[in-house]
């Protein structure tokens, strides 16, 4: 690990004053410290933001608001989250291990870096880690990689389960930085890799995620998260599906559908949602909608199974919710 300075920020202003392009914010540390040990991220200074408050899990007229420093396990186990937004609680419970969930913050979870083996191996090229160096995952060990949103520069998946659930629910992230506060839809917060995969989100220099806001959505009570993975616990998604369904008398009034383990960012399926609205929910309509919504999947050499596995998982999720 490279030598670095450490400072604990007392206030947001204190944190912003300390930032430079060579600093990193530290919350739970489960991603940052890991990547620092590997030499993937080498900040000159680490600014500990755990003293900034940024806590609280509140449900009000506008919806759910979760402070960015809440720990994954606290949010997952919160009774209001579990009752009103089960997809969020389930996505968190299906993430990582109990130890990591006890440490990792919500804001950090949304900003976690990809698990792509080339990104983590400093001896190999990676456009995300070292812009312009190349992307060996295009033809290499890419069983776990993305089929949506890929580019010639990057095919790494976004690793967060929580982000998939939040994107399905139209969540927004609250940001604060030296230039003030703002709020961005989470779906727009993440960027496609394009030819600059090192830029993963909309954060401006020095900006922090301060909270996540999930708008009120009555039918979010009828939501769920399914995750297909190679081990029953402590493993990233091969494919995952977050869905919420408003179905009355067998007809779909509204639906939210987002998928994980397959996209370079959390991947919403608007065409599938559109195709389902107003339809009776049957295996056939679910399948047609999901196929329409995933037709643009572009598999790689070793993840050719993913589009079909995703479709089956999505149909399964919809039918489980609709049944």
């Amino acid at each position, binding site marked *: *690990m490279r030598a670095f300075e450490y400072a604990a920020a007392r206030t947001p202003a204190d944190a912003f004053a300390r930032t430079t392009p060579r600093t990193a914010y530290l919350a739970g540390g489960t991603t940052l410290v890991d990547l620092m040990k*590997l030499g993937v991220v080498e900040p000159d200074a680490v600014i500990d933001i755990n003293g900034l408050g940024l806590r609280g899990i509140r449900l009000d007229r506008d919806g759910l608001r979760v402070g960015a420093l809440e720990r994954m396990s606290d949010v997952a186990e919160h009774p209001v989250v579990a009752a009103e937004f089960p997809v969020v609680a*389930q996505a968190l*419970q*299906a993430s990582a291990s109990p130890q990591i969930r006890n440490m990792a913050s919500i804001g950090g979870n949304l900003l976690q870096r990809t*698990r792509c*083996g080339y990104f983590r*191996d400093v*001896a*190999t090229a990676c456009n995300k880690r070292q812009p312009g160096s190349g992307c060996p995952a295009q033809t*290499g*060990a890419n*069983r776990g990689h993305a089929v949506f949103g890929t580019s010639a520069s990057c095919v790494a998946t976004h690793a967060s389960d929580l982000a998939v659930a939040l994107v399905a629910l139209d969540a927004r992230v609250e940001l604060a930085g030296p230039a003030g506060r703002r709020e961005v839809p989470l779906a727009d917060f993440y960027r496609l890799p394009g030819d600059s995969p090192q830029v993963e989100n909309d954060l401006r220099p020095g900006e922090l995620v301060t909270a996540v806001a999930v708008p009120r959505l009555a039918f979010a009570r009828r939501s*769920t*998260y*399914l*995750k*297909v*993975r*190679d*081990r*029953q*616990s*402590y*493993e990233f998604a*091969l494919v995952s599906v977050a869905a919420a369904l408003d179905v009355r008398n067998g007809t779909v009034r509204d639906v939210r559908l987002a998928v994980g383990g397959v996209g370079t960012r959390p991947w919403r399926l608007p065409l599938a949602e559109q195709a389902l609205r107003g339809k009776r929910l049957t295996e056939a309509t679910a399948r047609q909608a999901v196929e329409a919504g995933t037709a643009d999947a572009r598999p790689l050499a070793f993840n*050719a*199974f993913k589009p*079909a*596995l995703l479709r*089956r*998982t999505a149909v*399964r999720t919809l*039918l*489980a919710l609709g049944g």
Partner: protein
Amino acid sequence: MTDQTSPARTPQRLDEVITGGIGTSPLRPDGTLKVRGEFAYSSDLWADGMLWGATLRSPHPYARILSVDTGPALAHPGVSAVLTHQDVPGENIYGLKTADTPALAEDVVRYKGEPVALVAADHPETARRALEKIVVAYEVLEPVTDPERAAHDDTLPALHPGGNVVRYQPIVQGDPDAVADVVVSDVYTLGMQDQAFLGPESGLAIPDEDGGVDLFLATQWLHVDQRQTARALGLPLEKVRFTMSGVGGAFGGREDLSMQIHCCMLALHTGRPVKMVYGREESFYGHVHRHPAKMYYEHGATKDGKLVYIKARMYFDGGAYASKTPVVVSNATSLGTGPYEVPNVRIEGWGLYTNNPPCGAMRGLGAVQPAYAYESQMDKLAKALDMDPVLLRQINAVSEGSTLHTGQVLDSPAPVAELLERLKRLPMPLENRTAPADVRDLPGGISNTTHGEGVVRGVGYSVIIKNVSYAEGADDYSTARVRLEVIGGEPVAMVHTAAAEVGQGLVTVQQQIARTELAVERVNIHPNDTNVGDAGSSSASRQTYVTGGAVKNACEAVRDVLFAKAARRFGERPADLSLVGGKVVSSTTGVIADIADVLGDDVIEETREYHHLRTYELDPVTGQSPRVHVQHAYSAHRAVVDVDTELGLVKVVRLDCAQDVGKAVNPDAVVAQIQGGSTQGLGLAVMEEIQVEGGHIRNPSFTDYLIPTIMDTPPMTIDVIERADPNSPYGVRGVGEPPTISATPAIVNAIRNATGLDLTHTPVGPEHICGPAFARA
């Protein structure tokens, strides 16, 4: 050893009074410390004023070294030494079976991760930073990565002077061109498995004023480490003294050298104690793995299901250096029919050099790979014959007196058919498909993927054969020194061996044997070191057999001395005496004295070896041998799985095992070994695989290399039967490896039973289960 150092001794609290002889399950002497987190492992070693060693490793699978500049690293503040191959004092070559591995690379590197240079510094981080300042110029070469090609393609570069074939072994029995009514064949591949021990490679070397060195370390075999290290250091054996520290698991991965030579070189060079500890990623590159294999199998049978012939060709990727590859080839070929009588056999095995990570010992050495293939074939044959797969196995099963395809006659019980019968009679678990099912019991578990949709149950069986102890003419022995004396008024035995406690419970077993043979309660285990004779390795399921035999022999020798003293003093005949509950008892006059009274101030100490029966090499052309293996062990599994056939997820519902252990010296430890082995086999069936791409490991972490969690581990019924081997001490039969071998094919057979798929690769993932259906979609 200097005064300011406080070198660790074997960090075990071995003086708790625990009673229990053989056939009982006393507490482990190291158990309390381990459960409390107080046990000192080798990574906890410490000496005042010590330096930290670190290793510069090749980033390339195959490259020529053009130059190494250590100057900038040596100039780095805090650095005490930077060493290369030029600093290896003795011969820069070692190896378990074949000396082909340089301690530090000279003009070429043959795998990614090969050690090139060493640093000693005042802090581990300083050492790592200094590594980055060593400048190595490489000419990168095209790596050899396909083992099957390496066997047959002479146009590939020869990675070693003798070419790329480490060993080729054919075994031919009967008519190699026999024909049969029903024939099944397939090509099976098995991925590279990691031992996944939790305690990383580590050691502490302390230079001595006599020019020698003491190394405290975690290993499976002290003496073979000592011999290889002494040769590289150019020192006589007595100046290279090894002491066992706490071992955090092994499973074969500690049989080859890792930091031993390096740590001693740095200590001798600097004159200071030096500690080395690998991180997890370095550990993936710093130890050998299980050989991946490609196996072509063809079975022929009569329409009644009697095996007529087996033809097989197997390729084992040994990676850059030989390690245990020659033994993998002999085990795989000599055990490659499975525990079946087959009149006509032609099996060929190749072990190859490539530029992939080196492969060597791992639990079930060379028997895991063919067992996956031949037990897949037996199910395929049963399907072709429309026959019960258990019955097919039973009518072909070997039994005592059977002749194997090597010509060896099985000279002790071989209850193969019985093991299967016992499993078949176990009750079947209920199917978990009535709502509301507990998702934890379903495929995907807490991942919430099914509540019963798409789930199909499958049942699979397997039975396997494994050799126990060293084979092919190796003089396999162990040494024990047993001391009996009175301490605090009571007789106390001390057992001193070099046999490695790697978690399997050997310390407990040695105590049990001494208690049984000497009728004393207190038995202490001396730290393992090289001040006593060789014990061989904690591998090949052999330590209870061989070291157990040595402890038994030494105890008997101590007892003979004690009886002679008692006979002289009390006018008894030694032959009439026995030991019961701390007393010397005469068959004619009853209790004559306490052991403590007979001993008085005397100390009786005897050292004995145990050698098992002689074995013989396989004939290089025919593969025949009157006794290639001293003992065979058998285990059978029945796996019950629920498969989500739409999403490709597998839940192993039950994994039941029946195994003949000859004699259960410690019944609880036997069951625990079988549970652990079965789980390791489960890992190979459904998740464990080191992903190697062009010689690079793509998942060198326990986040990316998956081993089963408790959520993945099913309930197990363990049926232990005891059919004594007349040739072994107490009739014991090796326990540790067989369940690892039979678990994998039973699970894969169960998945086949549920899905109807061929499944020619293990581990089996969603893409294998759903792949064919996806292709149709």
